[in-house]
C-alpha cells in the first residue's frame, strides 16, 4: 500500500523564522506530488511537482521534489501568522487518486 509520511507532525515558530516541512512517499506508480494548505475548511492547492530537482516558487513558499530520495520539501521563508495552518502532502497515482500524509500543523507566533 502506498504511504506518504510527513514530518514534523507539528511545529511552532515565531514570525520571521524559516521553516522546512518534509514529505516522503513510497509508491510503485508515481505520477506527481502535491502540497496543500488547510486553514479552517477546505485544503487549497499550493504546488504540484512532477520533475525531480525543479523548484517551484510562489512568494515566500517554495517546494522541490527528489525522486531518487522519494521525498519533497516545502520551505516557507519569513513566516507570518497567516501561514499558520495544516500543510498536507499528497501523492497522485492512477485515476487521479491522491494519498495524503498526516499533515504538519504549523503555528506561527507573533
Amino acid at each position, binding site marked *: 500500500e502506498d504511504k506518504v509520511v*510527513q514530518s514534523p507532525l507539528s511545529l511552532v515558530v515565531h514570525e520571521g523564522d524559516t521553516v522546512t516541512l518534509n514529505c516522503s512517499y513510497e509508491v510503485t506508480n508515481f505520477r506527481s506530488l502535491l502540497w496543500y494548505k488547510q486553514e479552517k475548511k477546505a485544503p487549497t492547492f499550493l504546488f504540484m511537482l512532477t520533475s525531480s530537482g525543479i523548484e517551484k516558487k510562489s512568494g515566500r513558499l517554495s517546494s522541490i521534489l527528489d525522486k531518487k530520495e522519494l521525498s519533497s520539501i516545502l520551505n516557507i521563508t519569513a513566516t507570518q501568522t497567516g501561514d499558520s495552518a495544516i500543510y498536507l502532502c499528497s501523492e497522485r497515482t492512477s485515476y487521479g487518486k491522491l494519498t495524503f500524509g498526516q499533515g504538519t500543523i504549523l503555528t506561527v507566533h507573533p
Partner: protein
Amino acid sequence: SQTIHQWPATLVQPVGSPLSLECTVEGTSNPNLYWYRQAAGRGLQLLFYSVGIGQISSEVPQNLSASRPQDRQFILSSKKLLLSDSGFYLCAWGQDEQFFGPGTRLTVL
C-alpha cells in the same frame, strides 16, 4: 470558472439515522469526483471516487456508500450512521490537481 458546492456545512445526527451529503460542480463536464474524510484535523482519507456517471470505486470498506446520478453531482449516503462516522467530509474534483469543496462537518451523537 469552476466551482464546487457542498451541503450542508454542518450536521448533527443521532446514531442509527440516515445520511445524505451532496456535492455539485459547476463550470466543467465529466470531472473525476472524490469523497474524502478527515478525522481530528489530520490527513485526508479517500472514501470513493468516480470517473463518470454511475461509476463508483470504493477505497475502504465502511458504513457509507456513494452515487453519481448526474455528471456533476456526487452523493455520499449511509442507511444507519455510527459514532465512528463523525468527521469532516470533503468533496473534490479534478485529475492532476484536485480542488476541494467547503466540506461538511458531521457529528454523530
